[in-house]
């Protein structure tokens, strides 16, 4: 089973190299093929970070435009997906900083903690306060939390995408979760029990 997986992975690597070579040579069909392979995941992450359809589209488009421009610089040190996500996350975070679209998420933690009720039936309140709490996290915690706990990236992938060590990714996730627990502490007893 392991041998089969390794074979499939190596075959995928070869195909990826061939695809990249075709893109570099200017083959438009190869560009489209690469786009189709990765656009869903890049778009999902952009949407998670931006929270708006228009911004997510813009960030995804810019990601692929920049990737096609710079694909000759790709050194195969990581997978193509990791390289694409690194570009996408960088574009999204820079874009969010510039457009200041995180106004909803900029609600301070104290304010977010005061929004909740203790009622178990108030699940929509939990989600609303959780959204506010995630939005109020600083960028480094929120990014790692969303990538790991929401989008399912591994710490290895997060480290490669963000350019940070795996241990740093784990620490940021731990601290991010702790901040969220603290912000939603009044729900704790109710939901844990």
């Amino acid at each position, binding site marked *: 089973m392991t041998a089969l997986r390794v074979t499939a992975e190596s075959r995928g690597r070869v195909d990826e190299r061939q695809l990249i070579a075709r893109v570099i040579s200017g083959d438009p069909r190869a560009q489209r093929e690469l*786009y*189709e392979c990765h656009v869903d995941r890049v778009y999902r992450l952009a*949407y998670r970070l931006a*929270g708006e359809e228009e911004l997510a*589209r813009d960030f995804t*488009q810019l990601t692929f*435009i920049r990737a096609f421009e710079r694909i000759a610089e790709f050194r195969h040190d990581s997978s193509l997906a990791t390289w694409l996500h690194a570009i996408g996350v960088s574009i999204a975070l820079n874009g969010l900083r510039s457009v200041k679209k995180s106004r909803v998420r900029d609600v301070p933690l104290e304010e977010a903690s005061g929004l909740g009720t203790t009622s178990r039936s108030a699940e929509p309140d*939990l989600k609303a306060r*959780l959204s506010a709490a995630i939005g109020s996290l600083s960028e480094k915690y929120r990014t790692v939390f969303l990538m790991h706990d929401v989008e399912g990236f591994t710490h290895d992938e997060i480290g490669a995408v963000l350019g940070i060590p795996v241990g740093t990714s784990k620490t940021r996730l731990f601290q991010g979760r702790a901040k969220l627990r603290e912000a939603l502490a009044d729900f704790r007893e109710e939901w*844990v029990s």
Partner: protein
Amino acid sequence: MMKDDNQFDDVLRRAAQDYNRPPTVVPREEMWAAIEAAQAKRASRPLHIVAPGPHRPMPRYVWLGAAAAAVLLVATGVGIGRWSSAPVAAPVSVEKSRAVAANGSGAESAVPSVEQSAGIDASGSHASGSKSTGSANPGGKQRPTDGGQRVAVNGQRVTGTGHRASGTGHRALGTGRQAPDRGAFGTPRQEVPYQVATIRHLANAEALLTAFRTDSRDAKMDAQLAKWARDLLSNTRLLLDSPAADDPQRARLLGDLELVLAQIVQLSPGAATQDRELIEGSIQSGHVMTRLRSAIPAGPTRGL
């Protein structure tokens, strides 16, 4: 406590799945169209032109090198030109001679004159040199046609006799060449100055005749035209005795022109209409204007 944290984290993780939940349908085609449009726009974007930096003067050694190269180039060109040009045994000098016109006006002209050279073979077939044009002598004075010096209408001496002998003579001298050295237009190099002078002269004559036909109603203009015609007449006679008249057709034209010019010179201010018609008849009967225009090559002749 730790167990509680893990449980709560699971709750938060599940709840966080709804945080900025992306739509199930990814707008692939719209985004791809936007990507293609952006790539096309980028491809058609003009190149960024870098503005030139501040002007820096060239160092002195660059100027010296450039000057030396220019001097070397000119010297090489002159050397090649001298080396490739034909050696001329007999000096046929085309100099700007001061041709004294028939009335002694002293107008300066650039008609080539050929100095009679003692070294020219007198047995040359064209020793007599001058050419009879058969034209009328307007002043009623005799024009010698024999070899030697020639006396113009008013009796003053004009240089330029015997050049036909000299021209033939130096062509025959032992330069070792069978064919005469030819210029750019297949004309013997020695005759090129005469051709240039002839063309310029004919252009001036055409201008004079045109002015005569249009402006000769005014007595003041008659005097000016007469003076102009006098200068041209002397030059015409010089050209008739030069290699420029080797061409029979051109010689006939110069002869007819000489007649017309002489008539204009003799035309007194305020002359009768009959006299003018006589001159006009000479111009028309000989088709002088047409032949003049045919003889003058197209293009500007002033710079010749």
